[in-house]
């Protein structure tokens, strides 16, 4: 009887999870999505906990849940610029949970009830631990890169034969895994199982080392997908359909986001994971010295004030400089003067999908003015001023024109078609991918060098100060 109640609760929770994601299709109903998700989760936890024939150690459960709250609440209060690393960390936690549960299940059954280790369950357990542990270390590495920790290399680390080493390791792990699957109760099986875990942990690290910051949106999406798939594998092991459905929802979300990110960079999964921007680095120094044109803040402010349409193109530099609030002040000043201001959002701007939207929403920019790349590009020739704030590769015309460029074929925001371009840039160095950007040398482009927050702040002062009304 109580089994029926548990299953019923799981079915309701599944429906609520699907509805929660459905409500995310519009900002107006999105918060209802969170409420639906919370309700489903509470229901799932209570239904699982309240099985007196299964659960006997309540103190352990209560203690672990309390600790989860203790760590989870502060983690939810990080500044929004730190959201990519928080997301990577939570993928790491998700992978760890799946890996540990898979390990516990195997160790338990191999000691007490080897008959339960059917081939099907063993395949699921091995998939669960490989995905879980590689997501754990891979996401930790990604979080380390995003947090710019000293001991985590920021630039892609590549060496000859890297892919052979990585794939070789994975092949050994899978080979050992197959051994355990076929002989789950053999005397050496536990040792081999531990070997699979060690290799998965190592593989996660090696997989992320060659990946640069510009590829982070894709990598975070792929790790998201892995975390979901490891939950699915856990569902197969535990014979639990709620785990399978919720994990599949997460897995498909990660998959779709990865596809969108890859399309936005004109690259394939394999290319992101195995083709680091390594070759590019050698080439970048060969470019001849070209001259930048710069403009004074007064001049820039005057041009913007007389414009009809100003398009602001934000990039990771805006996030680094925490410039979103100053950008919003500039937006307000221009709007007050009757200038139409739009934001052009490239899908891979920033370090995770949707990163720019969240930062600008935090700064109270109405979301109707955040325009996707495909929607804004037809308007770019009518645009009087394109203001590039800390974006680089996503506005590089080489993607359209230079077949030799590593970003050739990537869809870009066509800032170069605007009548005038102002580009705010921290330094004269090339961007993350190490590629020269011809936009900066165009006749119509004027550079404003400096920290994005300081430069935009000074621009705002031009408007709010004396003289201009």
């Amino acid at each position: 009887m109580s089994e029926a109640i548990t299953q019923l609760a799981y079915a309701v929770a599944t429906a609520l999870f699907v509805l929660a994601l459905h409500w995310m299709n519009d900002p107006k109903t999105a918060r209802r999505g969170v409420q639906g998700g919370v309700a489903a989760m509470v229901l799932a936890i209570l239904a699982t906990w309240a099985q007196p024939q299964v659960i006997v150690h309540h103190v352990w459960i209560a203690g672990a849940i309390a600790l989860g709250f203790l760590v989870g609440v502060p983690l939810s209060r990080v500044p929004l610029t730190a959201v990519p690393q928080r997301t990577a960390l939570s993928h790491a936690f998700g992978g760890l949970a799946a890996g540990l549960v898979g390990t516990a299940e195997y160790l338990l059954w191999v000691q007490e009830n080897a008959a339960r280790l059917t081939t099907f369950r063993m395949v699921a357990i091995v998939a669960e631990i490989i995905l879980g542990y590689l997501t754990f270390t891979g996401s930790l590495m990604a979080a380390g890169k995003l947090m710019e920790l000293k001991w985590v290399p920021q630039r892609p680390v590549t060496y000859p034969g890297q892919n052979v080493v990585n794939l070789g390791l994975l092949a050994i792990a899978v080979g050992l895994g197959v051994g355990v699957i076929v002989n789950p109760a053999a005397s050496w099986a536990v040792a081999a199982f531990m070997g699979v875990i060690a290799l998965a942990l190592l593989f996660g690290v090696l997989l992320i080392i060659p990946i640069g910051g510009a590829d982070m949106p894709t990598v975070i999406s792929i790790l998201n997908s892995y975390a979901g798939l490891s939950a699915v594998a856990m569902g197969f092991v535990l014979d639990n359909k709620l785990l399978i459905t919720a994990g599949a929802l997460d897995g498909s979300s990660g998959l779709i986001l990865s596809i969108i990110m890859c399309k936005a960079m004109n690259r394939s999964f394999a290319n992101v994971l195995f083709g680091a921007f390594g070759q590019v680095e050698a080439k970048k120094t060969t470019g001849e010295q070209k001259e930048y044109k710069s403009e004074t803040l007064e001049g820039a402010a005057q041009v913007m004030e007389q414009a009809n349409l100003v398009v602001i193109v934000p990039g990771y530099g805006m996030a680094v400089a925490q410039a979103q609030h100053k950008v919003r002040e500039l937006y307000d000043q221009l709007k007050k003067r009757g200038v139409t201001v739009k934001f052009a959002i490239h899908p891979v701007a920033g370090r995770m999908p949707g990163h720019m939207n969240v930062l600008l929403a935090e700064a109270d920019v109405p979301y109707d003015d955040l325009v996707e790349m495909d929607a804004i590009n037809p308007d770019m020739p009518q645009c009087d001023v394109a203001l590039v704030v800390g974006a680089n590769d996503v506005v590089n015309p080489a993607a359209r024109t230079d077949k030799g460029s590593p970003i050739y074929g990537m869809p870009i925001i066509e800032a170069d078609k605007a009548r005038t371009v102002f580009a705010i840039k921290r330094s004269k160095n090339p961007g993350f991918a190490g590629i020269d950007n011809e936009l900066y040398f165009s006749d119509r482009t004027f550079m404003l060098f400096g920290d994005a927050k300081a430069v935009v702040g000074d621009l705002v002062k031009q408007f709010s100060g004396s003289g201009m009304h």
Partner: protein
Amino acid sequence: MAETQPALDYWSMLFVFMLATFIGIGVIRRVSRLLHTPLMSLTNAISAIAVVGAIIVAGSEHPPLIRFLGAVALFASMTNIVSGFLITDRMLKMFKREGGSK
């Protein structure tokens, strides 16, 4: 119990997985691109449904080592649930239309 009809059950699990993936793809393709960051933190909290497996491992009559592994997994999942839902709501609160209305 599952052991009585194992073959049948495996197939039904695979079917559930396949159908849930299609539903997921269908629903998530319609999510506004504006909300891709909150979407990721929400699905992250949802995939912490691994909490169900962790509770079963941590709370059952098992040797202490096994329960300890389960308890660590439970802690990790719970952290994701709490921080995932809270930060998603925090971000969604910020998305406003012109004039401050939602």
